[in-house]
């Protein structure tokens, strides 16, 4: 089946998410869609899958124009999609998830069944009673054919993300997908899981299925694609064969040359400032996210915590800030026990915190830039005297900081929620670095930022280190870890699987990120580990 998109244009208000995009996917090919976050890849695919209607342009299948009012139409036309955030019901089994929407009912027909059995089958079908046996059999068969290794009876929430992704693929295959869209499929995978996915993609391709592979990771795209289409700012920047060099692709993606390295001198670590010993953190359901973790961060060094997202990094940071109770272990700062301290006590003790989710946890969107800059100090002089806020001092503080941190805003009274991601992050940094601190904890500090902001944030973090602050960076981007860390700790399932110097090869880190149990070194160079894409933003353009 040949799929063609012609002149697709999609607007969200004044934002042009897709502009006159042409794309042809040949049968049995892996067609990569490469672009930064916000380049319009997901929007385009949501148009193709019937989740969004294009403002202009048309979709052709085998030369015939089609229109998809809903995913139902797209599925019927043979298009399947594996979303970046899986569309699986966590409390359903694999079989239930696969069958949802196209349920088999009644009893599977068997040759020579006695008539009363056939009558029973008919009655059950009429009542809509599920035929679980048939669904299970279908899942097992597809699983065997493509080497997916899926048990139909396991609850999806108990499966690792790599397997959940396979369930999504089976969902599409059961619906006879001829074109399979994979939206950022490797974002949540370990290098080994990525390797498995690539094997499956090749098998599907050999079976005649076309794959649209969406990614912002150059090496993966080079490794798997037959054709590469690069998107930039909502428009096609060009097509390239997979033999194109990384530099060529990167330049096309970003539109200018990229420099991700931060210049920094050798660290001169002092005594340990932050000491974490045997820390164990669980959530309300009793699931353990951080399991007897022990590490120290010394003054004047950056400890980078690497790992695939969802291995307890978020919980670790929240526990260190007192936002989540700890089950066991201690946290101390310069020998002072902070294990039971409230977040306010920790801030006063000299911990600065840049949270992972800046809109949710870092800022109050409706408050002004100036107010957000004193969220942690509004009670103290000079910003307050008694019960009265000193508005002049708050405004003066904002004026200085906006200049110092190069926050691009029309005024300090602008609601912070209206700023771009990079400028929001600068506001947080301005606040957190503005009070006296000995430790800086920064979680995913540059997620979703444009190249310029990334550089700015990185420079500030290194500057803190040079001033003697103990810095803890948590990041899922290995490039960021390499650029910043003086020492790397790899986190896997709530534990540290190893400490390494920043000179360690990416394959070794990949092995540790997958639990470190495999003897064989990590998978080939196409692995997710060496991804080099900066992230520029038209925030909100990608779904």
């Amino acid at each position, binding site marked *: 089946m040949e799929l063609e998109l012609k002149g697709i244009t999609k607007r969200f208000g004044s934002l042009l998410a897709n502009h006159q995009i042409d794309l042809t996917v040949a049968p049995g090919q892996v067609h990569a869609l490469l672009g930064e976050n916000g380049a319009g890849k997901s929007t385009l695919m949501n148009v193709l899958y019937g989740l969004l209607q294009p403002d202009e342009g048309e979709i052709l299948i085998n030369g015939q124009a089609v229109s998809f009012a809903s995913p139902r139409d797209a599925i019927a036309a043979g298009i399947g999609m594996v979303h970046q955030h899986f569309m699986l*019901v966590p409390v359903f089994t694999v079989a239930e998830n696969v069958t*949802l929407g196209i*349920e088999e009912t009644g009893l599977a027909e068997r040759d020579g069944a006695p008539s009363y059995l056939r009558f029973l089958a008919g009655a059950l079908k009429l009542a809509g009673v599920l035929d679980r046996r048939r669904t299970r059999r279908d899942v097992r068969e597809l699983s065997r054919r493509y080497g997916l290794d899926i048990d139909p009876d396991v609850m999806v929430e108990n499966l690792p993300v790599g397997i959940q992704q396979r369930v999504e693929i089976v969902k599409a295959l059961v619906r006879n997908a001829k074109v399979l869209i994979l939206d950022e499929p490797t974002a949540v995978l370990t290098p080994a899981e990525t390797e498995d996915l690539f094997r499956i993609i090749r098998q599907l391709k050999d079976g005649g299925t076309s794959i649209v592979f969406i990614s912002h990771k150059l090496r993966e795209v080079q490794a798997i694609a037959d054709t590469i289409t690069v998107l930039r700012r909502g428009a096609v920047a060009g097509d390239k064969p997979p033999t194109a060099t990384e530099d060529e692709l990167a330049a096309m993606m970003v539109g200018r040359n990229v420099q991700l390295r931060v210049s920094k001198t050798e660290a001169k670590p002092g005594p340990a400032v932050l000491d974490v010993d045997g820390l164990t953190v669980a959530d309300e359901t009793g699931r353990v996210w951080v399991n007897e973790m022990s590490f120290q961060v010394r003054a004047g060094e950056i400890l980078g915590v690497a790992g695939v997202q969802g291995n307890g990094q978020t919980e670790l940071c929240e526990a260190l800030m007192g936002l989540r109770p700890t089950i066991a272990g201690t946290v101390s700062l310069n020998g002072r026990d902070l294990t039971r301290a409230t977040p306010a006590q920790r801030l006063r003790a000299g911990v600065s915190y840049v949270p992972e989710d800046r809109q949710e946890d870092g800022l109050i969107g409706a408050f002004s830039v100036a107010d957000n800059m004193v969220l942690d100090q509004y009670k103290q002089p000079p910003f307050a005297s008694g019960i009265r806020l000193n508005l002049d001092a708050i405004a003066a503080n904002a004026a200085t900081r906006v200049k110092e941190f190069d926050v691009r805003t029309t005024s300090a009274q602008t609601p912070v929620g209206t700023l771009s991601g990079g400028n929001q992050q600068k506001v947080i940094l301005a606040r957190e670095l503005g009070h006296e601190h000995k430790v800086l904890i920064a979680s995913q500090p540059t997620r979703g930022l444009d190249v310029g902001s990334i550089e700015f944030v990185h420079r500030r973090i290194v500057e803190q280190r040079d001033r003697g602050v103990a810095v803890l960076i948590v990041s899922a981007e290995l490039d960021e870890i390499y650029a910043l860390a003086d020492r790397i700790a790899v986190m896997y399932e709530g534990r540290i699987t190893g400490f390494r110097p920043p000179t360690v090869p990416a394959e070794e880190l990949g092995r540790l990120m997958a639990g470190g149990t495999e003897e064989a070194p990590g998978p080939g160079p196409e692995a997710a580990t060496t991804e080099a894409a900066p992230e520029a933003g038209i925030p909100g353009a990608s779904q």
Partner: protein
Amino acid sequence: MTITERVPTVLDSAAELVSPFRRWLAPASFLLLGLIDIFVLGTFSHSGDATFAFSGALDTVTVPNLTLAAAVTCYVCGGITIALAAAWAFLPFGLVVRRVTIAVVVFLFIVSLLCWADAGLSTSFSIVNLLQGTLAGSIPIMLGALTGVICSRSGVINIAIEGQLLFGAFTAAIVASGTGSLWLGLLSGALAGSLVAALLAVFAIGYRVDQVVLGVVINTLILGLTGYLYDGVMIPYQNTLNSPATFSAIKIPLLGDIPIIGPVFFDSTIFLYLTYLALAGVQVGMFSTRWGLRTRAIGEHPVAADTVGIRVTSMRYRNVIAAGVIAGVGGAYFTIGSVGSFGKGMSSGEGYIALAAMIFGRYAPFGAVAAALLFGFSTQLQSILSTLNTPIQSNLLLMTPYIVTIIVLAGLVGKVRGPRAEGIPYVKG
């Protein structure tokens, strides 16, 4: 610094992480109950025996009465309860053992309570009456809870069960009385329940009004509306519009003759049989059919359901409105199943109890019905005990079943996780 040398122990069960309060809550409350068994109920029993009757005078097969020495029984029950409390505290009990233990402790407490109440009285205490009353009295709560299960599983919080019961009761009474047909009354009661549900659906699903606020508003609306109509229409025409007949009991042949079980389960009005039917229907429907799978999907992850072509909004409308029929029948029980006339606010909060039963029952049909029966039992016990000549204020002691319920459920059920999308209106795109 190196990786910590200890082999990390994976905490295999959540039990180890439970806070000390949680850990000691169950054994402590068992101990308290055991002490009450012995020192309150045992010590203050009238000397003499308690007699329990298990069959009525007219039963074809009869079971002999059971006579127990009241004080001694209380002491024995209390002793066993305290032993169980100690075992719970110091032995590693599995899930099944825990549940059985809780059931046993509650049972022993009730036995002690009944011994204390009946000790030294000449009349025997009819266990069959107690259970029969429990089942019949729980009908509106059971049906309301089943309605709640369907709505919640579809992703809509139905606080308006109370209103559905009340409007069902009102409509059934006025129609049955006016037309003289009980069946028409039942049917219109059911429709009344789904009419209230339609109101809920339009505002909750269509206009995305906050569902908790909306539910309470609907309940208040129905309370006011039925009250107004009662004063305006029913009082002046009491004989024609508010004196419906009531359904009489139907005894199921054979099954109804089994001692104890027969009179309790198989000798009742059509309402109890409809409840069985609703329970079986919701259970099978929810977990074995296409409808159930889709319903659970739109309540858990509507976006996922949408991407596989399920029409989330229209399915929620259909489910909420259809489920209203069940609560409507439950409401009709008040008037044409039991009392025989409508009274202002006669559902008296049972819709809210149904809601609690649904949550305690973990959004499962059987769990919800079991929880509903527990509440019904407490109510029935109170009404029977108040007719016996008990030594102290029965109201006081009868708070204990509720307290037990809360403690036991806090200790046993723990945190109930409802459908993830419950109460969140679905917005496409």
